[in-house]
């Protein structure tokens, strides 16, 4: 079961002073077990570009810049047996404490 895991900032990060998990170890561990297919950190929203087509016309603009306090800063594509396994993968990501993670399964198009 594939999950897109959005890595987001959060206005109320963890205050636990213990050391955060190492992201490189997290990537190596989950890549080697086949639970992480790909992923990356994203450039800041100042580098984002919006593309729309309206009435046949291409509209390109900067942004979006709205809601700057909680933004997507990265992503990982997970392949897990079920939600419980995806939660276990997510909980050990450093951003589970510094921000928050959103697990979105692929839609089941056969249904």
């Amino acid at each position, binding site marked *: 079961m594939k999950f897109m895991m959005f890595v987001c900032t959060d206005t109320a990060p963890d205050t636990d002073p213990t050391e955060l998990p190492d992201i490189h170890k997290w990537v190596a561990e989950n890549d080697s077990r086949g639970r992480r297919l790909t992923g990356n950190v994203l450039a800041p929203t100042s580098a984002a570009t919006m593309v729309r087509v309206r009435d046949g016309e291409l509209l390109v603009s900067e942004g979006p810049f709205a809601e700057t306090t909680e933004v997507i800063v990265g992503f990982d594509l997970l392949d897990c047996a*079920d*939600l*419980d396994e*995806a*939660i*276990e993968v997510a909980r050990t990501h450093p951003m589970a404490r510094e921000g928050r993670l959103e*697990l979105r*399964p692929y839609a*089941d198009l056969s*249904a």
Partner: protein
Amino acid sequence: MSRTDTTTGAPDSVGAAAAAQAVAAAGADAYPRIVATLIRLTGDWALAEDCAQEALAVALERWPGDGVPGNPGGWLLTVARNRAIDVLRRTAVERRKLHELAVLAPDDAWPETPAGRDVVDDRLRLIFTCCHPALAIEARVALTLRTVCGVPTADIARLLLVSESTMTRRLTRARTRIAQAGIPYRVPSGPALAERLPGVLAVLYLLFTRGYAVDGEPAFADEAVRLARLLEVLMPEQSEVAALLALLLFQHSRRDARRDAAGDLLTLERQDRARWDHAAIAEGQAALARVRDDGPYAWQARIAACHATAPSADDTDWPTIARAYDALADIRASPVVALNRAVAHGYAYGPYAGLGVLDAAQAGGGLDGNPLAVAVRADLVARQGDRPRAAALFREAAAAVDSAAERSALLDRADELIP
């Protein structure tokens, strides 16, 4: 666990009312098992519940004329399974599911001893899936009642104070979410089990209190006790399960003594202790003896044990209860715990001590408008000797409670103070 009497001989036609009763009795036990079996074979929650539901509807139609079958559970499973096969054929899904359903012989799948490991595992999988933290708490309670306990949707709606159509939508949404979010049909293992267990216990306790409430549905309380027993058999290493079971049994032991002949509610000290269920108390004590940790249910069970084993209200070990509430307030502070702590200190160390704790509890504002807090104050004031003020407080509390039985009990207290 079976609540059906299958010892009758050849089926005869029965009255519609008797048939409806037989369907309800068979359904309560059979529904969760049918649903669990069909989920295991098809992985489809909505299909499993629709087919189980339909089997009950067919039984309601046929049993009045054909008579109640000798093995009602097996009969219902056969009808539900055939229905599932029909639906799957029409939607042309994988052949494997169809095959597994076709080879399921309901007589084999319906053993005489329902406590078989497969049945128990099925039920436990259902419990953990229905109580998954990725579902909203209201959805967890409703789904557990519907799927694990087999309570009809209309009854759940009445119990949770929503319309039947709202409850139907809520249940449908929850089942869809289980499938879409990827919530597994599985009991968690390792450290995940310890993390998930409190959520399951909270649902069971909520189920019990909803059933045990003055105007509640007693069958739900029975169901919660049964589920707690089952959980303890399956998780003997989890101390809090034994603690919850003990707590439920101690409270449940008073179910027949809570009302007088007129149906009015009796407070603990006025109940006839001979009418308490002493077998339940003994079972609770045995469960409490298996409790090793100091979790929130452990402290609550120890408090309930003090009440359940006191020879009379006057001989209750209040200092032990007060200390247990102190410990409980440290790990699980809440307005209700604070209120009960005030009561315990009042009995253990006198009304002035109780009022001191009550004042501190009410300072936070969490008990504002709570009629129980007014009643507790009334009782403490009465024991200080200020009868007019105590009577006025009891009347104030009576005016604010929802339940007629509780109102009547509070007004009686006021009348006794100022005849």
